[in-house]
């Protein structure tokens, strides 16, 4: 299994960008979520005290990933949560053509005294946003507004 990400420097001077990779869409989505999580907090400082389950479906894999990452930003503001880990399963329904996501985010309420907080992500953006299947698996490029 390969599920990795790396931050990119040349795309967004004032903001933050990353490239995520996975052998499968599930691995890609997990890696991309981890990149968003780690932009906001050092996950090693977050305890796995609660789990949020997220279910989404969309005909577009690009839109599904976009909304899944936006959910992490939403939960940070609306419920005051930061996360340690993400896990998800992304499957394609061959009959309807829809992509289905069943994801979990594990973390806890924000506590500045214990958490090594980083940047407050304002939004996932469509700038140079891309999800593609290459020879070596699935790749996504994502720019976040900071």
């Amino acid at each position, binding site marked *: 299994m390969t599920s990795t990400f790396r931050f990119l420097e040349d795309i967004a001077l004032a903001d933050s960008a990353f490239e995520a990779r996975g052998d499968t869409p599930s691995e890609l989505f997990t890696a991309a979520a981890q990149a968003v999580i780690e932009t906001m907090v050092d996950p090693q400082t977050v305890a796995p005290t609660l789990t949020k389950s997220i279910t989404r479906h969309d005909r577009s894999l690009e839109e599904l990933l976009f909304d899944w990452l936006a959910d992490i*930003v*939403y939960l940070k503001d609306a419920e005051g949560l930061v996360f340690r880990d993400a896990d998800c399963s992304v499957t394609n329904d061959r009959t309807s053509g829809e992509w289905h996501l069943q994801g979990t985010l594990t973390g806890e309420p924000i506590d500045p005294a214990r958490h090594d907080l980083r940047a407050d992500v304002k939004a996932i953006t*469509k700038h140079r946003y891309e999800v593609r299947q290459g020879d070596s698996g699935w790749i996504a490029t994502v720019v976040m507004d*900071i």
Partner: protein
Amino acid sequence: MQLHTQMAVNRISDQIWEIPVTEKPGMLVPARIYATEKILTSMDSGVFEQVTNVACLPGIRRYALCMPDGHWGYGFPIGGVAAFDRETGVISPGGVGYDINCGMRLIRTDLTLADVAPRLERLMTELFRRVPAGVGSKGFVRADRREFDEVMRKGARWCIERGYGWRHDLERIEEHGCIPGADPSKVSDYAVERGINQLGTLGSGNHYLEVQVAADDRIFDKPTAAALGITGRDQIMVMVHCGSRGFGHQVASDYLKVFEKAMRRYGIAVKDQQLACAPFRSPEGQDYFAAMNCAANSAFANRQVITHQIREAFSAVFDQPAESLGMDIVYDVAHNIAKIERYTEGELVVHRKGSTRAFGPGRPELPEIYRHTGQPVICGGSMETGSYVLVGTDQAMQDTFGSTMHGSGRTMSRAQAKRSIRGEQLQKQMAQRGIIVKAVSMSGLAEEAGFAYKNISDVVETVDTAGITKKVAELRPIGNIKG
């Protein structure tokens, strides 16, 4: 002159450069960049690409403009100004930015550096405690959905009604802190949920609260400074930079999606997905404008609650009511917004993204106290250097749709800044120079190091020499709070 573009960039004056419509297919008007030769050569390729993309949008009038603090942004460049015909033109969330009504507020005091220096550490601790900052921070104001709808409609006025401020604060805020036409029914629940607990919070990134000094030798126009309440003699000032927080970010995100689909319906093709737009007169355009005004008003309310907390902190530390410390607002002005304004072309939808309104003397929109000086313009520099107060001019009304710069503009990536210095190291260095920094995130602090930004003085000199704003005073930081 080596520029980061292959396009022809013609010199109009020492501070104005023009890219003609022949340089890119689809350009409807020329693009104009305000910059000295030194600043122009340092501008990234995104500025040239994006300002010419903006020049292709339907209904644009006169020029697509970029200010000297311009750099790459989403869709529009930061520092971008564009005016569209109200009847035939478009409105674009990319021309406003994700942080709707991100803006600056400046508060004066009667205190001097000599009064504050012995208690500065305590003051910064008190401010840091009372003004939450950083990832996901929550404010002390509790509002239910019905009350938050009132925040959207009334902006800063809602705060005054709740006791978070003084009645005469309102005249010192752009639009009296309340833009008409806000309609909470055009805002998603998702957006409200992101912002309802964040009134009175700074956020992170380049947002800050700063305690500053106005020294005599850094006041450039004493009569105007005096009219603004800036008396010099090492006077203590407080500057706030923040916006509409998660609420505004979500309004922008929501409508970018709406506009992506609307563009297909209206047959609008854009050169960048982040330039998504819709006719201003379309249902989508009107809905976004109504929702954007909700977010803009919430940002005025946010800065008003922060002002209340600042006054409380000063009052606690100096054991006097804020009124007797002379803590009046100098001005509050947005630098991420779209507004309807009248120019020689008629009523236009003026987009300012990382650009400040700079109305000249005599404009009826200005409060009586500033009608003869021109509108105060507040420009924040990096936390290590300084910030400026300027005033709007007639020249800005004629040349730039009453607009000017907003800050210094980034030149280094966040990652590179973090590699260059650690937050703890920067905090120590700044303390040695007499600037106390309280930060939630040390990595976030490193990202905002002074060397990651242009020299704000170069940017200010450009707009001053070009005549679109006149500098009044430079303010030096002595304390900074960051997310």
